[in-house]
């Protein structure tokens, strides 16, 4: 497919990995923020094409993984109420809460539906005016314009049986949190390309300056990741600590003005708890007062049960880049994508799922190195 397959060209991949090796004189640790990037790296074994001095650290950029267990519990509770339809992106359905997941709620008779777009959930509300349709709105800045638009359209069209269970998070606040940890190991950051497509680059300049780390807005294909690493290494080796844009085909410095305007109209910043990491000030979005009537939490008044996490799961350390998934004692046994203990083993963007699917089962990998010579 155009704009996909050419960015997986094995010869260009090898050319870039050679260029990285030529520029590297010492050890550097580069964190890719987004779980989609983690999957590209593990699937194509890109880490093995890099010189031994370069370590890739996997970041917290998996919205499904960091959605607080309380919110999963609320979605499950909503699904078990008569007359309520819970709509969600597919990834959320199998994320374990304290008392099961959304698929379990569906098996028990709840009305849980997987949708591709929040507008599909809105259309469902329009078709079924006697039911409450709750959309589980998780995601980073990439997804906020889509979820915000569903609320804007609901308000504009007077569709009052639609609401959002909002668990939105934002990347820059999380990066500031990780970079301010005294024991962090991050020398450079590959910022999540599609978050930057929406938000642009401006939030990253103060981060790069304050924490003296290169930040490269980077795409999702093999060539994008390697070029992002090359740009990071060139900065580190030459003593620069700047914001650069690798993903120029989709990221403008100002982002997407229309999408940013809609997000500002519908949402406002809030403190948000990240599963496995903790409370990060200013790291989330919630509905503004003008749209508060579309807030499922206010509408459904959930009981305040205390959530229960599995104690053997070390996904919090994985999400902070402190360990790699196979270092968790539960990885692969008993924790698998079929019976996950933690969210990163579920999601298509979770680091544990990436390692399980590709590194654990080598035949699933496309290894560019193997095609050399």
């Amino acid at each position, binding site marked *: 497919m*155009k704009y*996909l397959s050419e960015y997986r060209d094995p*010869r260009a991949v090898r050319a870039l990995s050679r260029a990285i090796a030529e520029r590297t004189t010492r050890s550097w640790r580069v964190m890719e923020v987004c779980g989609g990037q983690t999957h590209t790296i593990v699937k194509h074994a890109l880490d093995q094409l890099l010189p031994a001095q370069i370590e890739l650290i996997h970041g917290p950029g998996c*919205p499904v993984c960091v959605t607080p267990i309380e919110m999963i519990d609320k979605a499950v509770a909503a699904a078990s109420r008569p007359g309520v339809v819970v709509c969600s992106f597919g990834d959320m359905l199998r994320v374990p809460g304290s008392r099961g997941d959304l698929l379990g709620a569906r098996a028990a008779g709840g009305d849980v539906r997987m949708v591709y777009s929040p507008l599909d959930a809105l259309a469902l509300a329009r078709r079924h005016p006697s039911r409450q349709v709750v959309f589980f709105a998780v*995601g980073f800045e990439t997804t906020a314009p*889509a979820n915000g638009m569903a609320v804007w359209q609901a308000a504009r069209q007077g569709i009052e049986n639609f609401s959002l269970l909002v668990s939105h998070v934002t990347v820059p606040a999380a990066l500031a949190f990780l970079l301010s940890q005294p024991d962090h190991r991050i020398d450079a950051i590959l910022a*999540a390309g599609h978050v930057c497509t*929406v938000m642009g680059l401006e939030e990253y300049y103060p981060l790069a300056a304050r924490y003296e780390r290169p930040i490269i807005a980077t795409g999702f294909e093999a060539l994008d990741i390697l070029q992002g690493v090359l740009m990071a290494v060139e900065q580190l080796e030459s003593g620069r600590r700047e914001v650069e844009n690798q993903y120029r085909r989709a990221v403008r410095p100002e982002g*997407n003005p229309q999408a940013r305007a809609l997000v500002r109209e519908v949402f406002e910043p809030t403190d948000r708890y990240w599963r496995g990491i903790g409370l990060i000030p200013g790291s989330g979005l919630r509905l503004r007062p003008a749209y508060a009537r579309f807030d499922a939490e206010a509408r459904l008044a959930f009981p305040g049960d205390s959530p229960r996490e599995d104690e053997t799961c070390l996904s919090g350390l994985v999400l902070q880049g402190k360990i790699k998934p196979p270092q968790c004692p539960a990885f692969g046994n008993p924790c698998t994508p079929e019976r996950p203990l933690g969210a990163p083993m579920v999601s298509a963007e979770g680091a544990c799922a990436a390692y399980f699917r590709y590194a654990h089962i080598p035949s699933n990998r496309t290894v560019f190195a193997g095609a050399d010579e």
Partner: protein
Amino acid sequence: MCLGIPGRVIEITPDARHPYFTEGKIDFGGVVRAVCLAYVPEVEVGEYVIVHAGFAIARIDAEAARRIFDDLRQAGQLEELEAAGEGCP
């Protein structure tokens, strides 16, 4: 979850109520889907966009898309490619 898929715009349907209701059809290598075009008001039929959760979030800059290959050529990293007679985009 931040997955974005490139596709080609094949139809644009403006909506008299508000530009935010503009819809379009996008061709993803043969699979056609309806997508909200609210966030790409300047897009034209034939252009490529990145689609996320049913929304086009960016027009793809075709010139910037080629630059990575131009950069590699300039750095002399792609001779094997040229020699093989298989042009990169």
